[in-house]
């Protein structure tokens, strides 16, 4: 449990890395005189962001909303299904193929269909985000619910504990490290899901912003959108890590990054 963290360095190192990468990028574009529509310098991207921040903020809000709702829906659904699957090997065998089929369904194929079914609003975006994040949450939840310490289980059995008590007091807490591992994978996927849904259907959000910028050869705006998405991804992942450290203070994983 001994944690050796140096807060100053843990913040300074990634900031320094980002500054170095952006400086090298800026220098490359200036020295080689790269055309802006091919690759804009970070300064040009920043200019595009500052020029109309409201546009990015609104698009980011719409994408974030779809990503988070989709992720929550998928996580809850996956956990409930995982409880059923962890309960019985037969049900696991029966339900695994449809879950896998959902996973391998190409989003490109179903996105236009979802737009036809549900229109240009939030619903098809949530659906696509949930589709992408459901499987990693399901697999991690099933493994987590099965990962109980056999010694602790023996103790519960010696006290004649009910299934209900074993579930709430042992299985659910034991599953949390795996659920959080699933969330770490799913949070960036959820953002990608929302953006891809917007990109394919043309409904408002970061995906649509990218789609329009692409059509206009407005590469600085396109990169501006990418930067905003990167920032969102980092903030969301860091938030999960913060919650994880608080919830899983007892677990070995919480001492790492």
């Amino acid at each position, binding site marked *: 449990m001994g944690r050796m963290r140096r807060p100053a360095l843990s913040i300074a190192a990634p900031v320094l890395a980002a500054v170095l990468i952006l400086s090298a990028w800026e220098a490359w574009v200036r020295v080689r005189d790269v055309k802006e529509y091919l690759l804009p310098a970070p300064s040009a991207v920043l200019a595009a962001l500052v020029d109309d921040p409201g546009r990015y903020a609104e698009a980011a809000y719409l994408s974030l909303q779809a990503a988070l709702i989709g992720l929550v829906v998928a996580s809850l659904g996956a956990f409930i299904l995982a409880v059923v699957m962890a309960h019985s090997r037969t049900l696991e065998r029966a339900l695994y193929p449809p879950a896998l089929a959902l996973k391998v369904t190409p989003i490109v194929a179903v996105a236009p269909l979802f737009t036809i079914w549900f229109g240009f609003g939030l619903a098809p975006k949530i659906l696509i985000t949930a589709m992408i994040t459901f499987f990693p949450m399901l697999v991690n939840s099933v493994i987590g619910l099965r990962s109980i310490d056999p010694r602790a289980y023996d103790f519960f059995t*010696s006290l*004649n504990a009910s299934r209900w*008590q074993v579930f709430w007091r042992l299985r659910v807490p034991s599953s949390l490290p795996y659920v959080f591992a699933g969330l770490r994978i799913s949070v960036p996927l959820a953002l990608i899901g929302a953006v891809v849904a917007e990109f394919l259907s043309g409904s408002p959000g970061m995906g649509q912003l990218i789609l329009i910028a692409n059509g206009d050869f407005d590469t600085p705006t396109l990169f501006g959108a990418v930067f905003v998405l990167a920032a969102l991804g980092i903030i969301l992942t860091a938030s999960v890590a913060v919650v994880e450290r608080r919830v899983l203070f007892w677990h070995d994983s919480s001492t790492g990054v």
Partner: protein
Amino acid sequence: MLGGNSDAARQARALGLVTQDPGLLPWLNVAANVRLTLEITGKITGANDDSEERVAELLEHVGIAQFAAYFPGQLSGGMRQRVALARALAHRPRLLLMDEPFGALDEFSREEMRLELLRVWEHKRTSVMFVTHSIREAVFLADRVVVMNGRPGRVTAEVPIALERPRSASTEELPEFLKLVARVRSELSAGIGEPAARPVVSGDPL
């Protein structure tokens, strides 16, 4: 032994279990781990909830009252076994099953825990079935040592231990103690295969 088979004893919540790796719940602190036993066995009732006092009393008995708010990951092996003992005694079982409880501890903690167990037992007088591979440990703790041999697993001898109680560290230096250790050893080697001794400490006649 308890007027029925093992399932019946379990269902009557007549058993307390302590194993070599006790599997404490790492997300609960020491007090909450002990309280869990009361919760599972339905000893916590809304009307007169005395669980706080009972947990505090149990932690006091096993000598870890000041560690109530610690989590298992912050404790040494010996400390964890004390929590396991408190947890196993919380619902006042009629029989305490201890399966190599001190097997993973270093020699010093092991000796300390033996004395600690006897001290707690003097107070609680719960019957204990204690499985161990250590002959000295068996003789030191027990009223009766049941010698078992493997392949096939069977009881090969039973040795009554008439050493005076309360016992202390100096008990191990008594000539009778050494004689009894020699006797159990010879009973063990009389059988073939993996040796295992199964002593019984009993408070009341079983």
